[in-house]
């Protein structure tokens, strides 16, 4: 049996996934063990690397006994999601408009580039001064962070449509709306979703910047409070919470990508084709 055959056999039997999980757990346990030993023996500076066991105790404290992380987490997630949706809708919407008009593209492009080139950390205080200390300014910062990637990717997708396909659509007297709906948008979708993934990855950073500058609550505030009093184990709990949150958000976006842009994956394409074919034949059967 070749290695490939063995892999296929393992995959089909379900043993493969268990082996992968076991390997991941072993690697993680090894890393954490080395970290714990390093921190206990003084090899790792406890000011910067608290013991994993202390961090674990911190998770229990912040999530269960004190339970003080929940409100902060909820606020940060709400800022991230609202800013992401607003920034992405604005970015994609504007790119769709700009993608349809050369003139609009010519005039808008420099402003978009300027907005991207301006460092967020520098513009954050100005946004807070303009929008106030409340929720709006935090969302505005996240929105600004989330605007550019969907905008650029959508525009790229719209502009780089296959010329032959475009000619074919035109030769068939397709309307502008039909060209947009049947050709440009489906062609641009993989890039749009790529842009959304990038935006989501940046959204957490944007929310943290906003909370570091001025906020009464949020994980950024909590991290500041804990590092200020050198409670590094609790600060790590907040940072790891953000890491896990970022990971799940990213995987969520990947799943969305996989579901919407099914044609980028052969197996999914076959699945969808089979489903459509079945639906089609059922419809035909009903007709006859």
């Amino acid at each position, binding site marked *: 049996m070749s290695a490939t055959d063995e892999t296929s056999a393992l995959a089909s039997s379900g043993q493969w996934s268990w082996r992968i999980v076991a390997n991941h757990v072993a690697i993680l346990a090894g890393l954490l063990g080395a970290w714990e030993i390093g921190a206990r023996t003084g090899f790792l500076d406890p000011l910067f690397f608290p013991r994993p066991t202390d961090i674990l105790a911190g998770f229990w404290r912040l999530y269960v006994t004190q339970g003080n992380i929940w409100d902060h987490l909820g606020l940060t997630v709400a800022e991230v999601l609202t800013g992401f949706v607003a920034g992405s809708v604005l970015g994609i919407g504007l790119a769709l408009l700009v993608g349809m008009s050369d003139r609009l593209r010519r005039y808008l492009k420099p402003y978009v580039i300027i907005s991207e080139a301006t460092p967020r950390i520098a513009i954050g205080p100005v946004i807070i001064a303009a929008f106030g*200390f409340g929720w709006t300014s935090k969302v505005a910062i996240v929105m600004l962070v989330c605007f550019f990637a969907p905008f650029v990717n959508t525009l790229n997708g719209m502009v780089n449509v296959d010329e032959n396909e475009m000619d074919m659509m035109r030769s068939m007297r397709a309307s502008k709306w039909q060209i947009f709906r049947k050709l440009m948008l489906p062609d641009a979708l993989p890039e749009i979703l790529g842009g959304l993934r990038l935006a989501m990855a940046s959204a957490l950073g944007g929310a943290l910047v906003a909370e570091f*500058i001025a906020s009464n609550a949020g994980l950024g505030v909590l991290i500041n409070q804990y*590092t*200020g*009093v*050198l409670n590094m184990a609790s600060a790590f709990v907040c940072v790891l919470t953000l890491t896990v949150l970022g990971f799940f958000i990213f995987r969520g976006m990947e799943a969305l990508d996989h579901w919407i842009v099914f044609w980028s994956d052969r197996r999914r394409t076959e699945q969808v084709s089979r489903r459509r074919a079945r639906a089609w034949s059922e419809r035909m059967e009903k007709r006859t």
Partner: protein
Amino acid sequence: MKRLTRAALLGVAAIVAMPAAAQDLTTVNAIMPKQRSANYFPLIVGEALGYFEEEGVKVNLLPSDTPIPFVNFLRNGQADIAMMDSAEVLQAVAAGVPVNVVYEVMQTAPDGIAISAESDFKDVSELKGETVGLVSDRDRVTMQIALDARDLTEDDVTMVVVGEAGPTLAAAFRDQTVAAIAGSGPDWLAIQANGIAIDLITPSEVSAKPGNVFVALDDAVEGKSERLEGYLRAWAKGMYVATIAPDVVAEIARTTVPEEWEDPTFGQQYLENAIRLNVSVTENAGDLQTETWSSIQPAMMKFGLIEETADPSGFLEPKFIGPANDWSKDEVAAEVEAWRAANM
């Protein structure tokens, strides 16, 4: 039946009146450098004991680490009152902003020069030729004044910003990467509470200035005087509680800011330092020290913070000090005992 009807009516009246009372509260937008913290315990104590509510005031705290000067938030109307340090006040005055110092929150500056307890240096005069640290660039003037008090100048040392982040600052002390560090009380406290011993070598010239003061613009002083009076009175009462019942203040801080009390020893030390800084040294709480404001200006002028001195009578507004102190200490003591009985 009559009793039942009366009780029901009273209940309905109370339910109707409660939201109405809550709606009657006037919001005071206060911009300060930190979130609710033991460091500014008069606020959390005043809120816990209901002093702000009694004054018809609801505090909307605007905690900010923004580099934009707080005075700009007074000018654009987002804040009614701002907590600023003496240098910021004098710079605003020099810029022609109609600021008024209405209450001195911390009457001695928390700023200081600290060294590792294991350091060979014992005085600022020994720092010549050494590299010294600043917690942030705002502490440059603290170091300049300290050096000047020992006939040294900025050119005699190399100044580097070591950063506000707790771990970085602690490492700088522990590893003695710099000879001394200019910063403020809360910075040292976090480090000491974590087992890193430090000594203070602050010349008296550095701390002889107001640390943090409440500032309002002319418009607010005239147009919002009632709510500012209420705010300052509640603040003064909250401050007074620490002098008669520090354990009650500790309990309130523990509940309001659990993040500062995960290590109870640290929490207690942090609070004690805050009490030392926040409790007024003048007879009247928050009183304005005209002479101090005059005496700090030459040094600030010398180090380029301001270009000319300003007459303190032009920016010190004493009209709130009387009303802020117009309350009964016995009543506060009784309220504190009642709170203790109910909550501790």
